[in-house]
C-alpha cells in the first residue's frame, strides 16, 4: 500500500464529474423517496431497488472505465521503484473509499436522518458492501482484458448477470425442483450472488411478517442467528477479497 497513491486517486476521483453526479443522483432519489412517503419501511422498500440496481451498476462500470483511463498513469507508476502489489491495492483502496463515500452521502445520510431503524441500517450496510464488491469485480475484469471496449462490455454483462440473469436462473431452478425440499440448497445458491444476499437480509427486516411463513422461517432461522449472520458477513467479505486477490495475482505477472 502506498498512501501517496491512495491520496492521489481519492483527490482525482473527488473532482470527477461522474462521481459528483452519482452522489447527487443518489441524494436526490433518497430524499425524494423519504419526503414523498411517510411510512419509513415503504421508503426503504423503494430505496432497495436503487441499492440493488444502481449501486452495483455504477460501481462496476465507473471503476472499469476509470481503470482503463488511468492505464498510462498505472504504467508510469509501475516504472517507478514501487511494488506492483502495493500500487494495485492503493488504487483499489482509493476507488473503494470514494464509492463508499458517495453511497454514504447519497443514501446513508438521508436514511440515518429519516429511517434509522434496523431495516435502514441493514440497507446502508448492504449498500456499502455492494459498492466495494463491485469495485473489486471491476478490478478483476479490467486487469484481465486489455481492450477497453471489451472490458466495459464484460463489466456490463457481469452486472446483468448478478442483477437479472442469476435470479432468472434461480427462478427456473425453483420451478424445476419445487417438489423437493430445496430451501437449504437455495440459501447456499443465493450466497453465490451478493445482490441476492443483500436483498434477502433487507427482506427479513421489512417483510418480517410474511417471512415468518414456513419457507421464510427457514431463511429466518439461518439469517436470524448469530452463526448464520457471521457466515453471511464472511461470504460478503470473500466477495470483496477474492476478485481483488485474483486481480493482484494477475497484475503482478501482467505484461503492461
Amino acid at each position: 500500500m502506498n498512501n501517496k497513491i491512495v491520496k492521489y486517486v481519492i483527490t482525482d476521483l473527488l473532482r470527477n464529474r461522474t462521481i459528483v453526479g452519482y452522489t447527487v443522483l443518489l441524494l436526490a432519489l433518497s430524499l425524494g423517496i423519504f419526503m414523498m412517503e411517510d411510512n419509513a419501511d415503504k421508503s426503504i422498500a423503494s430505496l432497495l431497488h436503487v441499492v440493488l440496481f444502481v449501486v452495483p451498476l455504477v460501481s462496476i462500470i465507473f471503476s472499469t472505465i476509470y481503470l482503463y483511463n488511468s492505464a498510462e498513469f498505472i504504467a508510469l507508476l509501475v516504472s517507478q521503484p514501487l511494488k506492483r502489489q502495493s500500487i494495485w491495492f492503493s488504487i483499489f483502496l482509493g476507488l473503494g473509499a470514494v464509492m463508499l463515500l458517495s453511497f454514504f452521502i447519497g443514501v446513508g445520510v438521508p436514511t440515518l436522518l429519516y429511517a434509522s431503524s434496523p431495516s435502514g441500517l441493514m440497507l446502508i450496510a448492504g449498500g456499502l458492501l455492494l459498492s466495494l464488491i463491485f469495485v473489486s469485480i471491476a478490478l478483476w475484469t479490467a486487469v484481465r482484458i486489455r481492450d477497453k471496449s471489451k472490458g466495459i462490455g464484460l463489466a456490463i454483462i457481469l452486472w446483468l448477470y448478478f442483477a437479472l440473469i442469476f435470479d432468472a436462473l434461480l427462478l427456473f431452478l425453483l420451478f424445476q425442483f419445487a417438489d423437493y425440499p430445496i430451501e437449504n440448497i437455495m440459501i447456499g445458491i443465493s450466497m453465490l450472488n451478493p445482490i441476492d444476499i443483500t436483498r434477502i437480509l433487507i427482506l427479513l427486516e421489512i417483510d418480517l411478517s410474511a417471512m415468518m411463513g414456513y419457507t421464510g422461517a427457514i431463511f429466518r432461522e439461518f439469517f436470524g442467528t448469530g452463526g448464520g449472520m457471521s457466515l453471511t458477513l464472511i461470504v460478503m467479505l470473500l466477495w470483496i477479497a477474492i476478485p481483488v486477490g485474483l486481480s493482484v495475482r494477475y497484475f503482478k505477472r501482467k505484461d503492461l
Partner: protein
Amino acid sequence: MRNRLSFVWRISVGLWVISGAVHAKTIEVGQRQANKSIQAAVALANPGDTLIVHGGIYQEGNINITKGIVLIGKDGPVIDGQHKYEPISIRASDVTVQGFTIKNSGQSSMVDMAGIKIYNSSRVTIQDNILDNNFFGIYSQGSKNCLIKNNRLRAYGKAEQYIGNGIHAWKSDSLTIVGNEIIGHRDGIYLEFVTHTQVEDNLSSNNLRYGLHFMFSHNNAYYSNTFRANGAGVAVMYTKHVRMERNIFEENWGDAAYGLLLKDITDSHIQHNIFVKNTTAIFMEGSNRVQILENRFENNGWAIKIMTSCMDNTLTKNNFVQNTFDIATNGGRIANTFDGNYWDKYEGYDLDKNGIGDVPHHPVSLFSMLVERYPTVMLLFRSFMVTLFDRSEKMFPSLTPEKLKDDKPLMKSVIL
C-alpha cells in the same frame, strides 16, 4: 275481631318471611375465625348466605358448592389444589366467587379439571379472581346466564397436551365473559356449542394454540378483545351469525398462524378490527355472506387469503397499509365483492377529484399467486426480475384473476 286477628297474623308472617330473607347469614372463615375451613363453612351455610373468606392458604382438596351462596375473598385468600384436586366445583345456581387466588389444580386426561368449574348451573358469577397454574382455568359446562369478569388467568403450558384452555365453555348459553386476561394456556377462550354469548374486553396472549377458538357457537358477539402472539392466532369454525368488532389481532407469526382463521363461517360481521403484524391476517375458507367492513390491515405478510370456496362475502372500506401482499387466492373464480377499500399499493389516478380512483385496482399480484403455489419463490421477492413480472402482469393480466378487483378504490385511507 277476626279481621284484626288475621291482619296481625298476616303481618307477623310477613315480617318473619322478610326478616328471614334479610337475615341471610354472613359466615366468616379464616385462621382467627370460628370457621377455619371453607368446606365446613359451606356445609353450615344456607342458600343466600355470604361467606367471607379471610387471607391465608386453604388446602382443602375439592371445595364442592351445592348451594346458592356468595363466596367473597378478603385480603387475597389462596385456594391451593395441590396439583391433585379441582379447587372449586360449582353445582348450584346463584353462586358468586369473588376475590380469590386459585392455583395448582390437578391435571388429568380423563376429566377436565379446572380452577373453577361450573356444572349445569345458572346465574353464577366468577369475578376478580386470580387463577394461577391451573389445568383448565374457568370451565362452564351446560350453564346459563353466567358472568365471568375481570379474572387474571395464567398458566405455564409447555405442550398442548399438558395444558387446558383458559376460559372453556361447552354447551352453555348467554354467558358474559368480560375483562379477563388469559396468558399461557392452550386456547385462551374456547367455546363449543355456546350461544348468545358476549365476549368483551379480554386480553388473550401467548397461549400455545389459539387466542380464541370457537366451533358451532352461533349468535355470539366478540367486542374489543386483544389477541396477541398466540401460537396459531384465532380460529373460528362452523358457526353462523358471529359479530366481531373492535378487536385487535397482532403478532400471530408462523406458517400455520392466522390473525383470524374463518372456516365455514356464515352470515357474520367483522367490523372495526385492527390486524397488525400477522403472517396471515385473515384466512377464509368455505365462508359465505361475511361482511368485512372498516378494518385496518397493517404490516401483515398477507392481509387476506381468500379461498375460492368462499362466496358472497363483502369487503368494504377497509384500509390495507404496508402489507407484503394484500390479497391472495388459490384460483380464478371469484364470487366476492371488493368495493371502496383503500389500498396503499394502488397506482391509479383520480381526475375528477371525487376521492375514488378512476381505474380499478387489482389487489392480487402475480407473485402472490406464485408464492401460493411454490412457497420457496419467496426467496426472490423484491428482486428486479419479480418486479418486472409483476409490472407486465399488471398491464396485461393473464394469470391473476381478472375479476378480483376493486372498482372504486379510495384515494385516501378511511378514517376509523
